[in-house]
């Protein structure tokens, strides 16, 4: 791939979300990308922990993903959900025991043969800038084996990015900000 072009303007620095976003960022049905009654709905859940393995109850997570057919949608209505329109984006404040849940669908591959994943952004008090990572679906092992990011990681790191499918069809994805099995977090071209 060619070199990413240099930025013309210096980017504004990020800062921590802090502890007091509760009246601002959460909204009704924020974590329900689809209705729970939708036969294709999938629960995506897990816990977020710190370097001591303790949960981080004051964090906020966002996901952004393609629909079941791998289409990236561009539809408004995320903040005022009508229960029918899939917008691909959701947000949730983690609960008091560090657990989160999204109701969504399994994203399809955006290109044939690609490993489908959900993009995840982590914000928390104590975290000075947002973190990005990917939640890969566990099923398509051939696509996972061919994935450029996963192929560049050790087996231990790779595991941190692949969700587990539970018996009821739910996806389990835990986030470890620090320490043993620390989740692999990502940087992209053109950040500075």
């Amino acid at each position: 791939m060619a070199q990413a072009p240099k930025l013309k303007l210096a980017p504004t620095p990020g800062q921590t979300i802090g502890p007091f976003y509760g009246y601002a960022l959460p909204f009704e049905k924020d974590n329900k990308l689809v209705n729970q009654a939708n036969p294709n709905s999938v629960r995506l859940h897990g816990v977020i922990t710190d370097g001591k393995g303790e949960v981080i109850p004051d964090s906020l997570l966002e996901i952004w993903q393609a629909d079941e057919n791998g289409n990236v949608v561009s539809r408004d209505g995320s903040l005022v959900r009508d229960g029918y329109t899939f917008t691909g984006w959701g947000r949730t404040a983690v609960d008091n025991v560090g657990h989160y849940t999204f109701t969504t669908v399994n994203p399809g591959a955006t290109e044939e043969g690609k490993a489908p994943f959900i993009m995840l952004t982590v914000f928390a008090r104590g975290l000075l800038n947002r973190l990005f990572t990917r939640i890969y679906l566990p099923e398509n092992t051939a696509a996972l084996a061919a994935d450029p990011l996963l192929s560049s990681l050790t087996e231990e790191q790779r595991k941190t990015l692949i969700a587990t499918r539970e018996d009821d069809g739910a996806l389990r994805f835990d986030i470890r900000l620090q320490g043993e099995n620390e989740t692999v977090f990502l940087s992209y071209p053109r950040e500075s």
Partner: protein
Amino acid sequence: MSTETTKDESFENSHVLDPAATADSQETISEEITSIHEAYRQEVIAGKQAETQPRINFAPYRSSLLRHPTKNLHHVDPETIELHSPAFGQRDVHALESDLTIQHNGEPIGERIVVAGRVLDGDGRPVAGQLVEIWQANAAGRYIHKRDQHPAPIDPNFTGVGRAITGPNGEYSFTTIKPAPYPWKNHHNAWRPAHIHFSLFGTDFTQRMITQMYFPGDPLFSLDPIYQAITDQDARDRLVATYDHSITSHEWATGYNWDIVLTGSNRTWMEDEEGDH
């Protein structure tokens, strides 16, 4: 996880809110900040590229100690979903949500201000039609939040939350009340400079960011480990709004300008490159 910690985190008393809170003095915190900044300055003199973002490992901000990854961020080329962003529009945000002074029956107490500017990407292109969310303390330094137990008055006419959708040139404008500084538990006698939290989206989801806007000349800047986690002075300055008399309106509100620059979009150049083949 100890039950003790769980209790502390959920207990509605800011005195025990943060298990990382310490009794360190401001002098200790300031010395740590100075030492990190001096080491950074030496690196820049030695030819290192200027930093544009806060350190996520910044010990003077005690809560960051256990909440930052210890491994380097893994560099990756963005894929399709990462090159796009969710769409927001009139359905999501009512035009009146950008006025934080009209959300209740009465006028909020404090200095009425307008904060206006543009959201741009790293190439200077306006980010149009995107969501901007803000939240802030009131004119006494108090948030509407069950965990904020700072004994300053709540203003029944001020919630401190606003939203807007950027215009065709990336422009936004909020009418609000100037927030006050407030104390927190990072160290003994710790005070945050007055700030407004901003949440921003770009054209690519990789541009997603949350930050804080500050006011010019705040005497608390040099003491604040969150602001000083940005080691570079030019970068720190980018979080400070400018008093702008052209935004100030006659007998109504003073005005501040603050433009926000997101990181660079990867969609355009990657698509162009694909088109070359």
